[in-house]
C-alpha cells in the first residue's frame, strides 16, 4: 500500500505533520482546529489555480497569467452585478466564462501558432490586468476602493460554513481537488496530458491531437483562475482589478514544491494540494510564532529554491558529491 504512494508525496506528508507539531509546540493555539481550517481562506485562490496550472506544466508549458485573470474576473463579476445590475449568480458564471476565454486565447496562440508559452502568458498577464483596469476606469469605480455592496448570499459563498463547522473554502478546496485528481489521474484525457508532456512528437504519432490537449489545459487553468477570482471577491466583499497580482510566485511554489517537474511530463495534483497546505500553514505558523509578515517571503523563497534543488534533479546525491568536488565536471553534462 505504502509503495503505491509516490515518495515525494510521502515526504510532503511528513513535512506537513511535523510542521503542525512544531508550530503547535511554539504556539499551542496553532492546534486549534478552527484556526487551521479557517486558514484555508488565505490560500484557496492560489490552490484552485495551482491544481490546473499543474496540468499546464505537465504538458511542458507554463501559465503565468493566472494571477491577473483573477483581477479581471473579479472586476467582471463586480461590474456586471453592481453596475449593470445583472443577477449575481449570472455574473459569477459570466466571470468564470471570461476566465475560460482568457485561457482559450492563451492556449490557441501557444498550441496552434506555436509561440512560446512564457511569452504569450506574459503578454496575457499584461493584457488581462490591463483590461481589468480599463473596465474599472470606464465604469467609473474607484481603483483603490473597488466595487462593493454585494448581496449577503454572495458574500456567504466564501465566508459561510458547511454544517457550521467546515468553512466553505475547505469544501471548495476538496471539491476542486477531487475534480482535478479524477481528470488528471483517472481519465484517458489525463494520460494524454502526461504523454504530451513526456514526448509531444510521440504523442502526435500515436494519434493524440496534442494541440487540442494543450489548448484545453490552458482553458482549464483560465476557468480555475475565474473561479478563484469569484471566490476572492466573495471572501473580501469587493471587486478590485489588482486582486491576485502577487499570486504568480505562490502558485509556482506550490506546483514545484508539490513535485511537478517544471520541464513537464511528471507530477500530479496530490503533491500540489499538499504543498499548498504546507506553504499556507508555514505562513500561519510563522505569523503565530511572531515573525513579521514581510519577512515570510524569505522563507517561501528559500523553500522554493531548496525544494527544486532536491527535486529538479533525478539523483541529488551525485550532484552533492560533484558540488563537493569529488567528481569534476567539464563545462556541462550532456545528459542534463
Amino acid at each position, binding site marked *: 500500500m505504502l509503495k503505491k504512494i509516490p515518495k515525494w508525496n510521502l515526504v510532503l506528508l511528513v513535512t506537513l505533520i511535523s510542521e503542525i507539531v512544531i508550530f503547535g509546540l511554539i504556539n499551542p493555539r496553532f492546534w486549534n482546529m478552527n484556526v487551521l481550517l479557517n486558514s484555508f481562506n488565505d490560500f484557496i485562490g492560489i490552490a484552485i489555480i495551482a491544481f490546473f496550472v499543474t496540468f499546464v506544466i505537465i504538458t511542458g508549458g507554463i501559465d503565468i497569467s493566472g494571477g491577473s485573470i483573477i483581477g479581471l474576473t473579479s472586476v467582471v463579476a463586480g461590474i456586471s452585478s453592481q453596475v449593470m445590475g445583472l443577477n449575481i449568480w449570472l455574473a459569477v458564471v459570466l466571470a468564470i466564462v471570461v476566465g475560460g476565454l482568457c485561457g482559450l486565447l492563451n492556449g490557441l496562440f501557444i498550441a496552434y501558432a506555436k509561440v512560446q508559452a512564457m511569452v504569450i502568458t506574459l503578454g496575457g498577464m499584461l493584457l488581462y490586468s490591463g483590461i481589468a483596469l480599463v473596465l474599472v476606469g470606464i465604469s467609473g469605480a474607484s481603483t483603490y476602493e473597488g466595487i462593493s455592496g454585494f448581496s449577503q448570499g454572495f458574500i456567504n459563498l466564501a465566508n459561510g460554513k458547511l454544517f457550521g463547522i467546515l468553512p466553505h473554502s475547505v469544501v471548495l478546496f476538496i471539491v476542486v481537488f477531487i475534480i482535478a485528481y479524477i481528470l488528471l489521474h483517472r481519465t484517458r484525457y489525463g494520460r494524454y496530458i502526461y504523454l504530451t508532456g513526456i514526448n509531444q512528437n510521440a504523442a502526435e504519432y500515436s494519434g493524440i491531437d496534442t494541440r487540442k490537449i494543450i489548448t484545453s489545459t490552458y482553458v482549464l487553468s483560465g476557468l480555475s483562475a475565474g473561479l478563484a477570482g469569484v471566490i476572492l471577491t466573495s471572501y473580501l466583499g469587493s471587486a478590485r482589478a489588482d486582486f491576485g497580482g502577487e499570486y504568480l510566485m505562490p502558485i509556482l511554489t506550490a506546483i514545484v514544491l508539490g513535485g511537478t517537474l517544471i520541464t513537464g511530463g511528471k507530477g500530479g495534483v496530490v503533491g500540489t494540494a499538499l504543498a499548498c497546505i504546507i506553504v499556507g500553514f508555514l505562513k500561519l505558523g510563522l505569523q503565530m510564532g511572531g515573525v513579521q509578515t514581510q519577512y515570510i517571503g524569505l522563507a517561501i523563497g528559500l523553500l*522554493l529554491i531548496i525544494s*527544486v534543488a532536491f527535486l529538479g534533479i533525478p539523483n541529488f546525491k551525485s550532484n552533492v558529491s560533484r558540488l563537493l568536488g569529488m567528481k569534476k565536471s567539464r563545462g556541462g553534462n550532456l545528459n542534463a
Partner: protein
Amino acid sequence: MSKIIGFMKHREFRTVAFLIALFLIVGLVNSDFISIGNIQNSLKNSLLYIVLAVGMSFVLLTGNIDISVGGVVGLSAAVSGMIIRDGGSIILAVIAAIAIGAFIGLINGLGVTKLKISSFIMTLGMNEIVRVIQVIYTDGQWVENLPETFKKISQLSFLGINSLAIIVIAAVIVVHLYLSNSKSGRYFAAIGDNEDGSILIGIPVNKFKVLSFVISSVCASLAGLIFASQIGFISTTAGLGIEMTVIAAAVLGGVSLSGGIGSVIGASIGAIIMTSINSALVFLKVPAFWNAAISGSLLIIIVVTDVLIARRANKKAKTERLNARISNLQEEV
C-alpha cells in the same frame, strides 16, 4: 541593393520600423510627440529599461531567464541610496551596487549550473528573497532626501543630449560589437542555440552561463543607481514588476526566450518602444488605465506575427530549395 535587402531582413529592422511608425502615427495626431524635446525625454525615460534589457539579453541568449532583476534594482538602489544619503561618496555607492549585483548574479548562476535548478524558479525565488532583504535592510522605510549632487547626475547634458544617455548608447554599441564580433561574445548565443554542441566543441558552458547571470544582475544594480538618481527617492516597492516589462521589451526587440537569437540593440529598441507607448498614450489623450492593456496586446500581436512571418519565410525557402534541386535534375537529364 542586395545589402539593403539583407539589412531589411534583420529582425532589428522590423523593430526600428515599428518604432518609427509609432512616432510618425502619434505625431500625425499630436505633432508635439515628434518634437526633439519629447524624443529626448522618451530616450531618457527608457534608459533604465535599456540597461536592464541589455543585461537580460545575455541571460536570454544562453536560453535562461532572470526574474530577479526587479528585486536587484530595488536592493541596490536602497543600499547605495542609503550610503549617499548618510554622506558616503558616490564612488563607494557605485561599488556597493555593483558588488550586490555581482553577488546575487553569482548565486543565481551557481544555482542554475551546479544545482541544475531551472533558471525561472531559481531567479523567482531569489527575487522574493532579495525583496525581503531590502525590507530588512531599510527597516521598511523609504530612502528619501538624496543629496542634489546625486540627483543632478541624471540631469547633466552634453551638447544638448543627456550625458547618461550618451554613455548608455555607447555602451550598448560596444556590447553589441562584443557579442556579434568577438569569439567569446558569440559563445552566449552558441550556448543558447545548441548547448550540447557547445559542450562538444569545448565552450566552457557553465562558466559563461554564470557570467551571463552576473552581467544581468550587475546591469540591474546599475539600473538601480539610475533609478535612484532619476526618481530621487526609493520606496520599498521600487522596481516591483519591472522584470516582466524588461522581458517583454527584450522579446519585442526580437530576443528569443528559447535562446540563441537576438541582439542587445534589438532589446534596447524594444525597451524604448515599451516606454514610448506609455508616453504616446498621454499625447493621444488616452486615459492612463489603457497602458497595460495596449502594451500587452501589442506584445502578443507582434510576437505572434513575427513567429508566423518567420515560419512562412522558412517554408518559402524550403520550396525554393526544392524547386532549384528539381530544375537541376531536369537540366542533367
